[in-house]
């Protein structure tokens, strides 16, 4: 099966053609936004990172930034620094050169302050936009797609409708030779054995147990026992009996295929098929991690409803029930609540999600894109010193 996408010089395939204005340090965030506002057609991302990171945290922040700005959905990037930060545009540019990304760099201090930087940045952004506008979509096999799987604001229906339907869509894409990444390690507690059974080999099996144990360990180190409150009283009132049942509902979005690999947050898989990214429970950070890991598109299931998008990649929203869909139609692309209403089955909604993925990959806009949702955050491990 084919879609139309952007083949980049490094061989990777994008489904959007953004020019991104990206601050490598929070101190340059407003300047980056000002430059982007001066050049309609560009996008920007704002975050609070770039200085004071050490060790594993520094590695993770840099890995996330490099994966994000070097993403195939980005035709060109203008990296904006202040000048004295830990993660300068040059640090990121050095890594980006390895993946062949089109980029420009600028810093506030060298450009003579805000006004000078915005003026010079505008010129660079215009040049990047001109180049990007000259790139055409071409026919590409769907096996080039990497689907990010996300859920948030889950309810009693999530594990019954939206998540298993997304799992079917994920299976369909992988059957076509494509890939999918699922995450949210916290919501895998109690499903270790189930996921481990699907591991491609002993190493993957070992890593599945490790990351879930580590997520639990982090909660305990803060003096919080996640499982003491899981399922929550609200979950129990809603009919969820055990943590196994709740997590099993969450992992349904990962479908039924073999788990080929386990990667760190924002680390890129080297194998096709299904990958687990060791991510966080916070949706926006996790979305950005999925993109940095290479996902070009995200399908996001929700019970209660959520508006979020990303700066560079489409997010398809799937509601688990019709009440939320009708309340937030402006935000939600597909209603899996029809399964409960008797208007569809897991199979038909799964196929609908798969078809929507292919259409959106070819250029159809999602509700989050139309509304201008560009939420961005980096999962910094801290402490910031």
């Amino acid at each position, binding site marked *: 099966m084919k879609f139309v996408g952007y083949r980049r010089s490094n061989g990777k395939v994008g489904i959007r053609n953004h020019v991104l204005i990206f601050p490598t340090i929070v101190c340059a965030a407003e300047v980056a936004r000002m430059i982007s506002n001066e050049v309609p057609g560009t996008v920007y991302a704002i975050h609070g990172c770039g200085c004071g990171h050490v060790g594993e945290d520094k590695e993770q922040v840099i890995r996330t930034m490099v994966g994000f700005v070097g993403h195939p959905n980005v035709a060109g990037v203008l990296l904006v620094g202040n000048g004295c930060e830990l993660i300068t545009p040059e640090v990121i540019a050095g890594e980006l050169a390895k993946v062949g990304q089109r980029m420009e760099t600028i810093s506030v201090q060298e450009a003579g302050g805000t006004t000078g930087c915005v003026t010079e940045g505008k010129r660079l952004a215009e040049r990047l936009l001109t180049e990007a506008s000259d790139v055409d979509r071409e026919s590409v096999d769907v096996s080039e797609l990497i689907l990010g799987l996300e859920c948030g604001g889950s309810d*009693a*229906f999530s*594990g*019954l409708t939206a998540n*298993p339907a997304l799992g079917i869509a994920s299976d369909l894409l992988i059957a076509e030779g494509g890939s999918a990444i699922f995450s949210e390690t916290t919501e895998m*507690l*109690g*499903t270790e054995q*189930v996921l481990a059974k699907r591991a491609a080999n002993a190493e993957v099996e070992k890593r599945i147990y490790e990351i879930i144990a580590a997520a639990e360990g982090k909660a305990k180190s803060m003096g919080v026992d996640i*499982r003491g409150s*899981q399922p929550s009283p609200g979950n*129990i009132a*809603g*009919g*969820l*009996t*055990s*943590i*196994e*049942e709740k997590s*099993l*509902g969450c992992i*349904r979005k990962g479908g039924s295929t073999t788990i080929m690999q386990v990667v760190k947050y924002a680390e890129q898989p080297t194998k096709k098929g299904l990958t687990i990214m060791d991510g966080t429970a916070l949706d926006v950070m996790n979305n950005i991690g999925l993109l940095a890991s290479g996902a070009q598109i995200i399908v996001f299931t929700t019970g209660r409803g959520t508006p979020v998008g990303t700066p560079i990649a489409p997010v398809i929203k799937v509601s688990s029930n019709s009440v939320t869909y009708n309340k937030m139609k402006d935000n939600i692309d597909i209603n899996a609540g029809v*399964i*409960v*209403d*008797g208007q569809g089955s897991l199979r038909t909604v799964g196929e609908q999600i798969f078809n929507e993925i292919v259409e959106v990959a070819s250029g159809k806009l999602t509700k989050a894109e139309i509304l201008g949702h560009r939420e961005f955050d980096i999962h910094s491990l801290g402490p910031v010193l």
Partner: protein
Amino acid sequence: MQEKAILIDEKDNVATALCQLEKGDSVPVGVEDRSVSIALSQDIPFGHKFALTDIQQGEAVIKYGEAIGLATKQIRQGEHVHVHNVESQKGRGDKR
């Protein structure tokens, strides 16, 4: 037509109510082309589970094709299945 209950996986021994179900209701539960009718012996709130077959004490309660806990007492077909008769097997520091 709106279904009254959903069976997620063919291996499951419980189904989930898609609306408030009353004691005495006879609820058709279908998966693929099969359908069985379960007579409810208790009210089943929306989102809650009921047994499709008799489940013996100590036997696994299966949903999503996987064990979600063990039955702490015998559960009859059509009975409410929840925290009062199922025990989680995960995170049980007290049992280690």
